């Protein structure tokens, strides 16, 4: 195992150091967070703990990336 592989494994095992919201609240707030980001508002202040959760939960992170990409695609058309 290389050092970078080891770092990734440690990160997955230990998760984010900061306080985080959990999956259910992430889903509840995801639209608010994405819209705030895309209008350059302070999304992390509006939804505390979201950023940490997205670091710790690959599935919620996938959904965040998709929602952001889809809304961004709309706004560019």
């Amino acid at each position: 195992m290389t050092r970078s592989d080891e770092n990734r494994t440690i990160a997955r095992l230990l998760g984010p150091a900061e306080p985080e919201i959990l999956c259910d609240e992430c889903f509840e707030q995801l639209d608010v967070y994405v819209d705030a980001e895309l209008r350059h508002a302070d999304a992390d202040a509006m939804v505390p703990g979201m950023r940490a959760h997205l670091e710790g939960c690959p599935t919620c992170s996938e959904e965040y990336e998709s929602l952001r990409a889809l809304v961004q695609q709309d706004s560019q058309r």
Partner: protein
Amino acid sequence: MARRVAKHSVIATVAEIEAIPSPMELRRSGSAAAHDDAAWINDLRQRDGAAIDRLHALLLRASRFEVSRRRSSLSFVRGEELDDVAMQAAGDALVAVLAKLDDFRGESRFTTWVYKFALLEAGVRVRRRAWQEREVVLDPEGWGGFADAGERPDTAAERSELVTAIGECIAHELTLHQRQVLIALAIDGVPIDVLAERMTTTRGALYKTLHDARRRLRARLAERGLSPELS
């Protein structure tokens, strides 16, 4: 009116999805332009057919978008089946949105709020299909730890102590259930909704277990004076 990808066509390509009018274009066009979000929501509450059709079109656009993004994980699945996945996801999302209309508080655009339901349903279906033929082994002892980290010449003593302590804490400080969930999610890479289905539980409950296990690991490492900061 919206151009739609035929219901029974193979899964839409990105170009086809991009050809479907976005909500902004729908607003600019024809009769749909008459509705602002509030009127649309009101029509949905009345179960107005046109409003529901418009919602379904939006959800289908989102579910096809998601299936298209994740199609590399389903390279063994035929295009027709992929489009069925998108259609089913849009249908389930439609039911969910209609049931939760009163939860929309206007803190985001209505379309953004709507999209997330379709992305969730499509993502869950894609991940479950990708893992359909794969066994998930819940083996709490199934991780060998950082086997050679202590012996590597580039490993400082503190680093070696850290990785050894992580292995020890996983083995001795977590419950059996916490070890099973942690290893399946963080080591074996099982998607959380796939694991939830196999363990007959919910994604929220599993993440809570993962969260508690991680907090316990961090607390035990801190008690040993070890910092998990990665370098």
